[in-house]
Every structure is written in structure tokens, then in C-alpha cells.
């Protein structure tokens, strides 16, 4: 198995799906000749030509609207929106059409498209390049919202997203694009969309996170073990919607304590939904109030202050200790 960054693993997923299926078309700004500003589509132009690795003008709504038409016609478009902070231009195409055409046509049409886009902070970027707005999409009925946390699950989930009969929004944490490598098998591997995973077992509390926040969460869990002798169970949501509550409900019925970690703002964030499901399904097992360690309810600051904004190991540990005192 080769050790790959998330960028390379995503590239592998695209390449293999394009080799297998001529319905798969990659399109977006700078995805062709340049291979994408983060190099996720690198080499696809050379291998598959411009008809399958399509450079588009600066037109997010047009890119997504076109992808919807291509998908309705029977192709499997994978469009890239260069930064999720620019995806508001195309939001209405997702909300008004991608999410609804199956229902509006009463099952006669479907929109098997993927919208890939980098999200999140931590890379010292300009304004509009660091936000974490997964709830905008997770709130739309008819949409699936997926956020991988590392190279191996990113590859497996992207393959699943491309093959999914429904529209999938696929957020890629730009802070983890190249932050670490993992073994990624050359042979096909997929992960079911809508399933979360226990990535670290423990009995004392449950930490629920996803995407780029999985690393500080796991680091915090290790430190809690070393310094406090606390065994934290860590869950990687992987899919934000449809949310797999069975996985974290089962964990919390065992640990009695839960915290949710995400970089998106706290109010109405993904954590709010996780907490609600726990209240509905695990209330009598709870031994302490559930805590949320999240971005503040602010526009993410410019990068001189972003480290203080983003939840880090320290903030997670502090919150965990407070909870364990209860």
C-alpha cells in the first residue's frame, strides 16, 4: 500500500472512477490544465482530455447548474467549487434543484452529482477561504453532506459519493489536505455514506467530531489518557447528513458523557443536532451536561487570530476535564 496525502488519495479516487466509468466528468475553475489549485485533479486533464476534465469560467451557479443538467441526462459530474466560501453563489442551485428534482419529478429524474469543495481554517488564508458552513447544506432535505477526516476515508467516501444516486456535498478540510499521510490501498475501497465510525475505544466519555477537527480531538484523547488516566471513546461522524446517530448514541449509553467538537460556529451548528439526538435517545444514560467545543459564533477571524478561534487540543481537554468533574 502506498502512503498518500489526502490530496493524492482524492486524486486516486477520481482517476479510478474516471477509468471505470465514462459518465464521470470533472469540472470547475482551474481543474483542467492546472490540475486544481490544491492539485486534487492533477493529471486528469492529461489522462482523460479536456472533455472529461473541464475548465470552466468563473461561474459557480453555472457550474452547479450545468452539473445538474449533466446528471439528469445520465452523466456523473463531479464539480469542484474552489473554496466553500464561494459556494454561496451556487447555493440556490443545490437548494432549489439538485436537492429537489427527484422529489419534484416523483422519482423520474435524479441528480447523481458530487460537489467537492475545500472548507475550514488553519491554512493562513484570505477572508472567505476559511469558513466551515456544512450546516447550510446539511439542513437541506434531499442532500447528503460528507466530510472525511483523512486520506483513506476521503478516498473511500469520494468513490461512494460518485456512485451515489443522489447529490452529495463533499467538504475537504484544507488543513488536512497535506498534513499527514496514510496507507491507501490501490484496489477499490468504499465506505457507506451515512455511517459513522468509532476510531478510538474508551469507557469514560465520548468525543464526537469529524473532518479536520479529528486530529486535535484524537490528540486530546491521548493526552487525557496519559495525564488523567481517562479513556475517551472517539467517533468520526464522516457523514453530517444523513446523520448516523446509532453510532454515537450507543457509545454514550456506555460512557454517559458526550462532547461534540467542530470548527463551525456553535449556535445551530452540527453539534446542536448531535446533542438533540442524544437528548432524545440517550437522556437517561447521561451523567453530565453535554458540551460543545466549537468555533465561536463569529465570522472566522483573519489568520493572525484564527488559532485562537479554532478549537484546539487545549480547549478540548479543558472541556473534558470540566465534564469529568461532574
Amino acid at each position, binding site marked *: 500500500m502506498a502512503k498518500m496525502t489526502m490530496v493524492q488519495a482524492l486524486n486516486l479516487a477520481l482517476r479510478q472512477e474516471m477509468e471505470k466509468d465514462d459518465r464521470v*466528468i470533472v469540472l470547475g475553475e482551474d481543474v483542467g490544465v492546472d490540475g486544481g489549485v490544491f492539485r486534487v485533479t492533477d493529471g486528469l486533464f492529461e489522462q482523460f482530455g479536456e*472533455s472529461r476534465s473541464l475548465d*470552466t*469560467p468563473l*461561474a459557480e*451557479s*453555472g457550474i*452547479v*447548474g*450545468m*452539473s*445538474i*443538467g*449533466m*446528471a*439528469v*441526462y*445520465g*452523466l456523473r*459530474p463531479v464539480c469542484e467549487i474552489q473554496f466553500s466560501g464561494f459556494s454561496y*453563489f451556487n447555493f*440556490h*442551485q443545490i437548494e*432549489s*434543484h439538485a436537492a429537489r*428534482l*427527484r*422529489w*419534484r*419529478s*416523483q*422519482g*423520474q*429524474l*435524479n441528480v447523481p452529482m458530487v460537489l467537492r469543495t475545500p472548507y475550514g481554517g488553519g491554512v493562513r488564508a484570505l477572508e472567505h477561504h476559511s469558513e466551515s458552513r456544512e450546516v447550510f447544506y446539511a439542513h437541506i*432535505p*434531499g442532500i*447528503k453532506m460528507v466530510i472525511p477526516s483523512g486520506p483513506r476515508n476521503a478516498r473511500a467516501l469520494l468513490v461512494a459519493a460518485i456512485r*451515489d*444516486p*443522489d447529490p452529495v456535498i463533499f467538504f475537504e478540510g484544507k488543513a488536512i489536505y497535506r498534513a499527514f499521510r496514510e496507507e491507501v490501498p490501490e484496489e477499490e475501497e468504499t465506505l457507506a455514506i*451515512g455511517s459513522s465510525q468509532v476510531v478510538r475505544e474508551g469507557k469514560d466519555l465520548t468525543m464526537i467530531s469529524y473532518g479536520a477537527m479529528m486530529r486535535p480531538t484524537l490528540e486530546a484523547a491521548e493526552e487525557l489518557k496519559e495525564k488523567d488516566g481517562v479513556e475517551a471513546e472517539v467517533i468520526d461522524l464522516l457523514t453530517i447528513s*444523513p*446523520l448516523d*446517530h*446509532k453510532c454515537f448514541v450507543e457509545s454514550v449509553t456506555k460512557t454517559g458523557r458526550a462532547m461534540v467538537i467542530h470548527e463551525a460556529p456553535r449556535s445551530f451548528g452540527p453539534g446542536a443536532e448531535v446533542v438533540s439526538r442524544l437528548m432524545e435517545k440517550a437522556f437517561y444514560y447521561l451523567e453530565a451536561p453535554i458540551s460543545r467545543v466549537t468555533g465561536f459564533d463569529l465570522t472566522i477571524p483573519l489568520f493572525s487570530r484564527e488559532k485562537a478561534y479554532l478549537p484546539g487540543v487545549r480547549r478540548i481537554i479543558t472541556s473534558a476535564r470540566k465534564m469529568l468533574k461532574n
Partner: protein
Amino acid sequence: MPKKKIDPAYQLEYLAILDEKGKLDETLEPDIPDELLLKLHRAMLLGRRFDERLLNLQRQGRIGTFAPITGQEAAQLGAVAPLRPSDWFAPSFRETAAELWRGRKMESVILAFAGFAEGAISETKLNNLPVAIPVASQIPHAVGIAWAMKYRGKDDVAMTFFGDGGTSEGDFHEGMNLAALYQVPVIFICQNNHWAISIPRSRQTHSKTIAQKALAYDMPGIQVDGNDVLAVYAAAQEAVERARSGGGPTLIECVTYRMMMHTTADDPKRYRRDEEVEVWKKRDPLPRFQAYLKAKGLLSEEQIEAVEEGIKGEIQAAVDRAETQMEAAGDPLDMFDHAYAELPSFLEEQREELREELAAIKEETHG
């Protein structure tokens, strides 16, 4: 370092063949088979009478809000007539006459306006997108479909409809730009009916014509008398043929008029003068086409009567079928169908919640 004209070749055409009195410019008369002419006439009349009947049903409270098409029959039917079934059609929300031509059933239209999602279901899968209500948002879909057709090496085309108001939306410009850039087989049909709810065409854009917007994207653009079905057909036919043979997209501005309200929820007397409507009544697309067909010896008053009778029966039968279907349709639990290919477990739980509530209501009512 000169200062000069860049491309003086840019010119726009205006096309009218049959004027409002039924006078024909024989040099421009398109070669349309008699059978198709009569089919177009019947479809125009059906569009008009169905609209009247829908208004009637709406006023009686039997259906909800809808957008009437009266006055735009030629602009719609002349455009779709050159299409074949394998071509795709991406309407906005005021193209009922064109939708019927493309195979949508009248009862499906009635069901949809009566609030039943079942109205989207056609008997056979047609290459039509459903009605798109957010203005101009369907335009990029047609471009994507046309891109896919080109990718698959088909000689089919996609045709999309929008109004004069829609040309102010970003999706119109993004769609036009993408279509021209990729030279895909798509035809943009603007139904310039002069009104976007209360905003007249003159306050929608400073441009003299809608057609000239094609020039910015280096695609052919033409303005036609949208109440002249021969002119609309001729322009559409040319655009469709060009697109089929790899010549790329065309913008056709059909100059027509919204004779009725925006939707039945609107009162146009608040913002437009009756005198203007009177002027356009004289430009009605139907009488002039009938005069043309009579002059050609294809149609007589008696035959028009017979067509009217046939249409009346057809509409009544559709209303009856729709109302019968409404009695059987509308199980609220169906709202969970078609959310996703497979219903996720959390939605199954919500469906169960509604099922229990409905069962309890039934028990209380009948128990």
C-alpha cells in the same frame, strides 16, 4: 495605436412574416407541411382554452395559483414545434402550451396546480424537465444537458424558456456564456411578454432588445414577432438545425405580451393601463394564424368550430380524470417518497411518527 470599430459585422435581425391582420410576406413564408400547420393551430387553440378553463377552476377554488399563458401561444408552440422527442425541453413556469405539445397531460397540469405532487408524473418518461419556479434557474440545466448531448455525440438539442425578467438574473448570463464557450446545442427562448409581475420590459433592462444580449456572448441572436407563429417557427427551426449540426447556441427573443395577470394571485390593474392591453389584443396570435390558414384553404369557420368542440370535450375529460385522481391520490405519507433513492433511517422514524398521527386522527374521526 488606432481607435477603431472592433467588429462591425455584429448585426441583429428582426423577423415577422405574418402581420396582425393576417397579411403574409410570401418571400419569408416557411415551408411547413399542412398537417403540422393544422396541428399547431389546434395546439394554440387548446393552449388558449385550457388557460381559460384553468382560470375558471382557480376562481372556483378547485385549483390553486397558476400562471396564465394567454397571448403567448405562438411564441411557445412555434418554438417547440421543430423539436423531436429525443430533444430536451427545460421550461420556466409559464409554458403550459409548450408543455402539452411536449406530451405532458392536461390532468397532470391540473393536479400540480391543485397541490398534488402526482402532477409531475407523466405516463411515459419524456425528455422534459419539470416546471422551474425560481426565475432563470433552469437555464444552466439546459446547458448541462446540451453539454452531455455533445459529449455523447448525439445530434439532439436542448431548448430552454424564460421571460424578459429572467434575462436580468445571473443564471441567464452564466448559462449563455457557458453555452457559447462550449458551443453546445442549446436554444434560448426568451418569452418577452413585456411584464415581470409589475415591472415593464423598459424598466427591466436598458438594452433596446433582449436579442442583442446574444452579441456579448458571440452567439446568434434574433428578435421575432412572438405573436406570429410562422416567424417563431422559422427562427426556431433555423436555430435547431444549426445546433444539431454543431453550430452552437442561439438566443431567440419572442416579442409577445402577457394578456393576463402574472399569476392568479396578482391584480395587473394596479400597475398597467387597460389601453396597453387593448393594443395587444389586436395583435392576438390566434386570429391572424386562422386568417392565414383560411387563405391557404386549410381551414374554414366550420372546421374551427369542430376543433373548438373537440378541444372542449378533451379539456372536460382531463378535468374529470384529474378530479377522480385527486380523490385517490394525496396520501400524506407519500411525502416521504422520493426524498432520496433510499429512505435514511432517521426519515423512516419521522415517517412512522406521521403514520401514527394519521392513524390516531382516523380513529378519532371514525372510532
